[in-house]
């Protein structure tokens, strides 16, 4: 019994092992589109991604705070990234998703237009945020270069920070 178990564990480790030496240098991201642009956030900061469900407006909040919704018994704020980024609001479509992100302190849902893909980037492929973006306020963690595209990586902590 325990031999079998050990076998399985060993096998699993063998499977994982080959990539391991590079793991430290690789950043896994999830890409999504808001408006015309593609953004991404580290995969570990995402709790889950769900299809849009009903939400409740919370009065006296900035426009981009759509309200709160019920995620299996927990009340979670919902933020429209379109509005947050200063884009005109648009109706949600088939492709819209609530992306539930979290850090140590806070959990919140973000409305995105559509998901693209999971992305693996090597650390050296990520450059710093453009200097024009103000260092303190910027929501941009860095810029990833991938083939022919440029990918904006967002700071989750900044997204989850209350700024009103």
């Amino acid at each position, binding site marked *: 019994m325990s031999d079998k178990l050990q076998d399985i564990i060993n096998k699993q480790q063998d499977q994982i092992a080959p990539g391991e030496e590079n793991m430290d240098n690789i950043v896994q991201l999830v890409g999504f589109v808001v408006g015309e642009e593609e953004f991404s956030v580290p995969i570990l900061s995402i709790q889950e991604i769900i299809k849009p469900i*009903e*939400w*409740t*407006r*919370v*009065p*006296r*909040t900035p426009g981009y*705070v759509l*309200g*709160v*919704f*019920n995620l299996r*018994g*927990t*009340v*979670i*704020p919902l933020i429209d990234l379109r509005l947050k980024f200063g884009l005109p609001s648009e109706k949600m479509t088939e492709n819209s998703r609530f992306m539930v992100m979290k850090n140590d*302190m*806070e*959990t*919140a849902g973000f409305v995105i237009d559509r998901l693209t893909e999971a992305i693996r980037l090597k650390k050296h492929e990520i450059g710093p945020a453009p200097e024009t973006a103000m260092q303190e306020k910027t929501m941009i963690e860095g810029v990833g270069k991938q083939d022919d595209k440029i990918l904006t990586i967002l700071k989750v902590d900044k997204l*989850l920070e*209350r700024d009103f």
Partner: protein
Amino acid sequence: MDEFQEILQDFLIESFELIEQLDQDLVELENTPDDLDLLNRIFRVAHTVKGASSFLNFDILTHLTHHMEDVLNKARHGELLIDADVMDVVLESIDLMKALLTTIRDTSKDEGIEVDACVLRLSAITNGESPAAVEAPVVQEEVAEVEEVAEEELDYANMSDDDVEAEIQRLLEERQAADKAKREAKIQAGEAVPDMPIADEDVDAEIERLLIEKQAEDKAKRQAKIDAGEEVPQLPDVPLEEENADTPAAEAAPAPAPVVTAPAAAAPKQPAPEKKAAPAPTATTVEQTIRVDVKRLDHLMNLIGELVLGKNRLIKINDDVEERYEGEEFLEELNQVVSIVSLVTTDLQIAVMKTRMLPIGKVFNKFPRMIRDLSRELGKKIELEISGEETELDKSIVEEIGDPLVHIIRNSCDHGVESIEQRIAAGKSETGMIGLKAYNEGNHIVIEITDDGAGMDPDVLRSKSIEKGVISEKEADSMGDKEAFALIFRPGFSTAAQVTNVSGRGVGMDVVKTNIEKLNGLIDIESELGKGTVMKLKIPLTLAIIQALLVGVQEEYYAIPLASVLETVRIGKEEIYTVENRSVMRLRDEVLSLVHIADIFEVEHVFDSSEHAYVVVLGLAESKIGLIVDTLVGQEEIVIKSMGEYLHGMDGIAGATIRGDGGVTLIVDVAAMMHMAKTIKSSVTGENGAAGGGASRAKTQPSDYKVMIIDDSKTDRKIMTLALKPLGITLVEATDGVEALNILKSGEHQFDALLIDIEMPRMDGYTLATEIKKYNKYKNLPLIAVTSRTGKADRMRGVESGMVEYITKPYSADYLQNVVKRNIKFTFSEESA
């Protein structure tokens, strides 16, 4: 080290529990100084704390408690009568003990608190001196102590071995000193002084003799006691001199004297047989309890919360299914299951809630002591009567309720109960009574604080508040007595002529209000001048799961804690009046200000054609407000959930809950909402631009505005005309109500506002206003009263007849201009005139 921490924890928990009971016991003791049960209980506390603290090496605490123990011990043996002065010192020492324990809890050390003065006083008492005479030099003490030995002797049985040892040491030294003194005296007297060794021999011989004597005596005593079947210690008739010398005898005392007193059951170091000998007649009935971490209970409560939500959802689904499959057989079964689940959930919830309940006596306990201290401090005689202390409340509420009660009771002592002379002059008994009563009322607990003091004078309160700038004269005029009583809760208000130590700094009572509001509680004050005051605090039993009223506005729903809902009424739109830009309605004999929930929560106004409005009358602490909503949905049990840091502390929202359908409903923070209502402009009676029938045409120049002046006095008309001239608006004059009505009916002019005098021939201002308001198209035409009638009744009548503003003569031109401008929504700058 960990072990030490663990012991320390237990020690602290035990000590704090003991002390809690202590205060009350002590005050009770002062009234019944010879209650042996009480004394024993108190003694035991000091003893237990002493024992444990010496074990844990808290020297200062041990030092203090040791002396406390001495005093109490004497009292216990009937050698000391506990009077108020002694009690002061004992209470002081207990305060110090508390302080020390708190320090220990915070720092694990008993440093930084000065106990010497108190210890000195304590030992003075032990020595039979008045504690006031503590300042007397310490030299005297030695003499006193020698005398005291006789009394202390008795108690060796009760002392721990260490103490006995120390005592022996001390006595020996004393004895030696005394011998020395004696010898010196002899030298002086020219007598031959025997050599030291001989003296020692003498002592030994005497010791031998005394030991035998003592043992015989003990035996006789024990026999006597066993015969009498009593446990009360007696004072032996042993001559002082001899007792002084028989120190070694004492060493043997602990063992052979097991029945001397009813030993404190909690004394840990006493030999076992003694414990057996004590049937602990004083022990209070011990409940079977187990200590549970509050966090676990909180977690349990959370889980129950989820269950309640699930139950709500199940009920909803059941209803849906019932509708769809009416008449099917399985329905009945489903129904049964649902109702059982629902029943059990409710029971479970109540059961868990009960585990979190504490008797309010826990809070009440500290008040006898407080009243006692206060009455001594204030030189008044006050008695406290507590009832209903077994009433139970949620732990979190019990913790919150203490402070407000302290403030209220202090206030009652200081401002309520009069001085002894005043009371006698008023024909009352010398002793003032303060009652503290708790009882259940539905889902609430009511705490009633009564005093038979001077009562409150609403007029004094009003004039004081005006003086202090808490309210304006206008507000004061329109204020009922109840509202005037509520003034004491305003920040910055204090009626005491002098600021005393006890109260009167003007902070206390608004703390009460804030705290009670935090608990969703209500405050009700009744007071009769000369008879006293009754203050009622009405507090919900629990905070986590609450009953709520669900209301709808447009497409949204909000939950209002039912605890704050006094009633709901349906009114016609015409019952809403506007006074100084605020909407009000008459509710029986009160004027209730109104606010629309949509204005507070920025709900988009879609035109509402309904002729009726629902008003939810909210009461919190001492204030009231009417909240207009579109629909009343019903009552539901809701679980308060936080909305997380991101949306924490949003104005007017206390949290959210999940409804049966899985949707989120926001919970109204009634306190915050009431506050917000004060600053929100009303839009209750209609939208902008609808004023004055067809007067909503575009205004391109100042003269497009038309105002009619109705006054029988030519001078008054002239004054108004002059005052309004700079605005450049068109003015039309009328000399009385009938004429004004005719002009209006003729339809020749479209007025933006009317300025109406009240006192007029043919038709007065009130009648005119009532007549005008009968026309639907003038419903929103602003009617401004300009009059010299300033009474409250007049203003009230003005409001009822439909006036929106009330200008009293004389007025300044600027003021009139501003009022008119505001009411006609004048948008031009004055230079254009």
